[in-house]
């Protein structure tokens, strides 16, 4: 009798492992094997396994310089992203105001912009002749532009913060709105002032989310390539520039792989440290009622915070606004364009510039982004579930590899994976959808896991006892409780997919032209105004897609709960 029960238990555990293991298996065969194939090129010399290449790469003092500079700028960028993103997350959590979902969707706009457009926005706004200097010169009656921000380390850090502050804002917002408001009230009635209560209770409880965001941002900045080159001037090169040089200029794949391997070990090592360290801070908590929000503007809003927020808004909207403004003001045939560049990109005779119609690009981009987001969510949840069962920190860190690997290496791995069976049978579009899902599910894992871990197990147990299967318990209990996290993760995935370039370039067989590729085509044809118009269109599409996604998501989750 006891034996029979045991066997049943084992079978149950086996089933849940299978459930969790399936996505891992798919990932392993689909992506990690090709990735390993490429990276291991760096460990082979004349059919022998050897560390000689890695040693040779690391012996180069310039490479060591690259590593130290890359880490330093990534650290500064993460810090500034936090400093600018945290107040934004606070603001989104604390206040309600008209157009809040619009503002929230806007924070994801930088993600979709190709680095070249961000660079354009930056020099149009912060440049010597940019809007900001122009305005300051007028106000302060100066002859020379007062701000010399660009072409320095600070420009790089600022641009990285522009990209990544929203990561902090979103992560903090998701975690903060799931805190029990009674905790802060408890501080107040214990005689603790608000700021001190924030430092001693709220902040420590937000640390897992902050750590999670910091790990992501650090890795993204560590791998940055175009931004340091474009905004810092060539003086500030990152490790990725080294990988590029080996792979593209010297066309020495094994050496590129060796450097890529070292780079990956550094980023994964950091991810592992995070997974070990950040886990310590997470504490399960019950959330009993939603955090109350205050109307904005209101008396209770502190002036200092708002000033800070205004600063971030300038940093944030300045470059984006400049790109949008550029699409209207850039001369076309000697006159300011007005809507001219938009007419240009939409006129059928100019379709050859991008090889498709702009609406065709919009449709392709949206289709790929939508389906890859759903797939990334499924994959991310599966992997998060698997990690709950397996509890391996090394594995958890390893699974971040698609985010942590050089885009050059990643491109080669995708090439290898998608030009062989079984993926070679996929159409170009389906291949791109799958590739994006593989690239962006780590985001889903990073956002969902800390919050899933924080859920009290009692709820699922209650559902199971009431007769729900594990899957049903997940769908009916955990999924609604993870709603906020899933919405945020989906929004990120959507935006990332809309702006993605590496996979789109590597997997293209000449059929699909996504929006960022269309922007590049206009740039390469010297149609800078058309590129700005296309970039503005991309921003618009992204904001609209994120709003629709959040609206649909909130609606269906509310429906699911009822």
């Amino acid at each position, binding site marked *: 009798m006891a034996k029979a029960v045991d066997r049943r238990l084992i079978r149950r555990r086996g089933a849940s492992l299978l459930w969790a293991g399936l996505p891992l298996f798919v990932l392993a065969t689909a992506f990690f094997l090709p990735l390993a194939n490429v990276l291991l090129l760096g460990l082979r010399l004349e059919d022998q396994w050897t560390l000689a290449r890695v040693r040779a790469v690391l012996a180069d003092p*310039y490479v060591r*310089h690259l590593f130290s500079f890359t880490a330093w700028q990534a650290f500064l960028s993460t810090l500034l992203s936090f400093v600018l993103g945290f107040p934004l997350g606070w603001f989104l959590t604390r206040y309600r105001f008209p157009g809040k979902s619009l503002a929230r969707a806007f924070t994801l706009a930088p993600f979709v912009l190709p680095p*070249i457009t961000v*660079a*354009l926005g930056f*020099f*149009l706004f912060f*440049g*010597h*002749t*940019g809007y900001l200097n122009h305005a300051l010169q007028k106000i302060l009656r100066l002859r020379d532009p007062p701000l010399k921000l*660009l*072409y320095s380390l600070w420009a790089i850090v600022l641009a990285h913060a522009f990209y990544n502050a929203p990561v902090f804002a979103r992560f903090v917002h998701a975690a903060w709105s799931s805190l029990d408001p009674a905790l802060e009230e408890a501080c107040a009635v214990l005689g603790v002032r608000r700021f001190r209560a924030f430092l001693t209770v709220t902040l420590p409880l937000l640390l897992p989310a902050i750590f999670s965001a910091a790990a992501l941002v650090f890795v993204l900045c560590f791998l940055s390539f*175009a931004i340091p*080159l*474009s905004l810092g*001037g*060539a*003086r500030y*090169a990152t490790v990725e*520039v080294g990988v*590029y*040089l080996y*792979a*593209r*200029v*010297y*066309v020495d*794949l094994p050496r590129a792989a060796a450097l890529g391997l070292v780079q990956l070990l550094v980023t994964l090592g950091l991810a592992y440290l995070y997974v070990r360290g950040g886990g310590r801070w997470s504490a399960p908590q019950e959330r009993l009622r939603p955090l109350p929000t205050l109307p904005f503007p209101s008396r209770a809003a502190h002036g200092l915070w708002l000033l800070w927020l205004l600063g971030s808004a300038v940093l944030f909207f300045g470059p984006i606004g400049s790109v949008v403004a550029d699409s209207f003001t850039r*001369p076309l*045939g*000697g006159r300011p364009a007005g809507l001219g560049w938009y007419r240009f990109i939409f006129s059928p005779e100019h379709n*050859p*510039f*991008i*090889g498709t119609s702009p609406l065709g690009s919009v449709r392709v981009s949206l289709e790929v982004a939508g389906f890859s987001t759903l797939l990334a969510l499924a994959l991310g949840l599966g992997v998060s579930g698997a990690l709950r069962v397996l509890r391996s920190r090394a594995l958890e860190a390893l699974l971040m590899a698609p985010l942590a690997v050089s885009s050059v290496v990643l*491109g*080669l791995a995708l*090439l*290898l994976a998608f*030009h*062989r*069976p079984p993926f070679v*049978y996929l159409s170009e579009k389906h291949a791109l959808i799958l590739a994006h899902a593989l690239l962006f599910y780590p985001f889903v894992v990073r956002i969902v896991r800390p919050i899933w871990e924080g859920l009290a197990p009692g709820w699922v147990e209650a559902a199971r006892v009431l007769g729900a299967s594990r899957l049903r318990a997940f769908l009916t209990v955990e999924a609604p409780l993870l709603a906020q996290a899933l919405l945020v993760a989906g929004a990120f995935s959507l935006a990332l997919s809309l702006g993605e370039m590496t996979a*789109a*370039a*590597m997997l*293209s*067989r*000449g059929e699909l032209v996504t929006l960022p*590729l269309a922007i*590049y*085509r*206009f*740039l*390469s*044809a*010297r149609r*800078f105004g058309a590129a700005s118009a296309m970039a503005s269109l991309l921003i618009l599409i992204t904001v609209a897609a994120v709003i629709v996604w959040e609206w649909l998501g909130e609606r269906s989750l509310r429906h699911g709960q009822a």
Partner: protein
Amino acid sequence: MRKFLAVLWAVFALWGAAEELVVYTYDSFVSWGPALAIQEKFEALFPGVTLRWVAVGDSSEMLSRLIAELQLGLPTADVFLGLADVELPRALAHNVFQPYDPQRIPNLADVPAELIFDPTGHVLPYDHGYVTFVYDSELLPEELVPQGLEDLLRPELRGKIIVTDPRTSSPGLSFLLWTIAHFGEGWPDYWRKLLPNLLAITKGWSEAYDMFLAGEAPIVLSYSTDTAYSYIEYGSLRYRAITLGGEAFRQVEGMGIVRNTKELELAHAFLNLVLSVEIQELMPTTQWMFPVNAQAKLPPGYEYAVIPEKPVFLEPELVGEKLEEWLNQWQKLLIGG
């Protein structure tokens, strides 16, 4: 099961191969339009054959994708169009191309010998041009317009020059090679003195030119046809290309037949078509490069395109041999090493 898949794969591959010629090129070749004209002509010549352009990225991105695909044994292109002359040694080292058969390319007869930069007979030129500096005549006083490479070092030009990165952009590399050709061993000294005058060293040409148009700096590294471009497109002579002491760096762009193609006939026909007068006459106003076919005429407005008296170039073989050393030296110089 495996057999079935193999058959399926073979059918798939045959079906794919019998129908089309795949050409890899850089994106501006498609976006500027010559690709479309070539396609129409080609498909008219070979009914039932599709010409498929794959153009996602610049020349170096497409070349490295091609090399990777060949190394990994993946299906790839039949023809590659857009190889910079200085990239030739690396392409040859990776055995990317097979030799072309001059007999099957009659139009080759009209291409001057000095432009055929590959003596091994793998890669053919299809256009050429000159990398040089362009200035904004509304921002730069006449007396500061540089007359020679040394003039770029004038203290008045501090922070007023934008160039591109030799590691990531082809005009950037051309400029580095130009200084090496001009100064010989002394080039690092020149660069050390030049650095304070550089406002930015951008990743690619687009950023550099975009910044230049926005008025961030009055001098930019670009192409000798820029004046012709702005005259023909906008009727403006505001942006003026110059030679420095009669010098500008020559770039020749080439094309070749990929090593393992099965479409030799179609590939040769394609190369011949690109060298035809009709297609060659499109190059000046689509690629803003000079045609290689001596019979091709230049369009009106091209009188503003600058042709250097002393075109500068380095032998691709020498570049192939020394490039890594030069770039290493250059990046160390940049961080003050």
